[in-house]
């Protein structure tokens, strides 16, 4: 079950020019690849969330560069790129009373849609999604995308 948990990099950033460029420059230097990326902004600050190929290295690099950064456990769900895909996932979690704190999606080279979610109960979510035959990806899959 553990291996289905994806380590997402979350980072606190003030809403001002140059912050993103700084992150990108640090990753370029360390040869870290971003697989999925989103910014949630709330006025003066924002939270940048990323799935990368080497999360532990990415965490170290950003921490050393002075960022407030954490590794957060999230799930990656492979979705059929057809209408109704998202609804099914939400339904399954909803029946078990598991809340989605946030979600973002991206499309891979292999034309699958991937959904990243943070949930209130990660173990419970893995179990109920498995039971519903919904495919969860792991860190190894992330490296191959």
């Amino acid at each position, binding site marked *: 079950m553990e291996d289905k948990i994806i380590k*997402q990099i*979350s980072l*606190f*950033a*003030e809403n001002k020019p140059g912050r993103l460029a700084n992150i990108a420059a640090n990753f370029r230097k360390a040869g870290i690849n971003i697989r999925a990326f989103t910014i*949630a902004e*709330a006025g*003066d*600050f924002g*939270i940048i*969330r990323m799935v990368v190929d080497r999360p532990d290295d990415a965490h170290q690099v950003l*921490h050393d560069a*002075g*960022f*407030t*950064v*954490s590794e*957060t456990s999230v799930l990656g769900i492979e979705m059929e790129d057809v209408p109704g895909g998202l609804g099914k996932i939400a339904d399954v979690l909803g029946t078990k009373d598991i809340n989605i*704190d*946030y979600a973002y999606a991206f499309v891979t080279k292999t034309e699958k849609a991937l959904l990243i979610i*943070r949930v209130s109960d990660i173990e419970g979510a893995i179990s109920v999604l498995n039971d519903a035959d919904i495919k969860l990806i792991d860190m190894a899959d992330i490296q191959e995308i």
Partner: protein
Amino acid sequence: MEYWNPLVERMPVEELKMLQEKKLKNLVEYVYQHSHFYNKRFDDAGVKPEDIRKLDDLKKLPFTYKSDLRDTYPMGMFCVSNERLVRFHVSSGTTGKPTVVGYTHNDINEWNTSLARALTSIGVGREDIIQVSYGYGLFTGGLGLHYGAEEVGSTVLPTSSGNTEKQLEMMQDLNTSVIACTPSYFLFMNEVANQVGLSIRNDTKLRTGIFGAEPWSEEMRARIEEATGIKAYDVYGTSELSGPLFTECQYQDGIHIWADQFLIEVIDPETGEQLGDGESGELVITTLAKEALPLIRYRIGDITVINKQPCSCGRTHPRIMRVFGRADDMLIVRGINVFPGQVESVLMNIPQVGEHFMIIVDRINELDIMKVQIEMTDEAFSDKINDIISLEKKVADSLKSVLNIAVKVELVEKGTIPRSMGKAKKVIDNRKL
């Protein structure tokens, strides 16, 4: 219990009063004769030296203000000629012309004695290595502590401020046991130590800190002591009075002001009326032992309370309780008095936020807007936006309950609030008043 001058430090209160009365009478006579400034100031106020017979007559004397020192720049208030001076210190002129203080040999000796008593009262002595990380030079912090520490026989490591990693290296290599600097610089030092994988608690011999030159709170003391395992003592003084002069004793319950050298009162800053013991007001100091630049009823600008109760350490001299802030540092926001020290106290009680903050005041559409920026810490960071917003709200609510005004709280990235090597700047006032 060790004392530097046991007879003086434990002198019965009545005897101390007699001594002060005698010294006050001499002082008034002395400045009237030797200072053109005071001669005129007394005449203008209609006071003659012979009007001052008892301590209670002190209130007949006019005040001296910081602006008087500036207006008579550089040496217009001095009572001695150049050949008797042995040193100058000059205070930074952040709000106008600098002020110049001159010292005779005796002035330096009295200064050293005051600090020697203070250092002894916190257990600093011959076996100590004291790292003086206050700035050396025109500022009184560095040289003041330097000679005070030599007086008690400690070994001084005169690092001055800055070059923090080097300072930490020397602290380890030379077994520094006492450090003297501003509290904000010490916190910065601890931050740098953590970054290079050094623990002040485990990897150094440091056990005592002498912190001052800026107001700091009881909560900050708790945080310093907890983070580094040292005992943190408040030191007090200002260049106009010589420099750093007084500290708390080991009981950390107020700063002992040597009554044979200085006469203190607390007044209402608005009316100038003397206030009673235990009442909070502006500290006013009269120097009883200075030759070059004696000051009569000097409005030092700090807000405090006088405590004349006997101290557990056996010293009979009055104490001033922790200086809460400077009358000049006080901000008036929407008609309400706000001290940066109050903001610091609130933040220190919220474990999720760091100790670095900046108060920013703007006036938008005729309304004062006060914003407090605080650094996000690794521990408090959550990647859920709601968690961050509720932390901001928690801080804002706590500030509002203490200050009685609405404050906007903004979390900023760590390391972005400027660190200071000397006095920390805590307020940016953008209002055009």
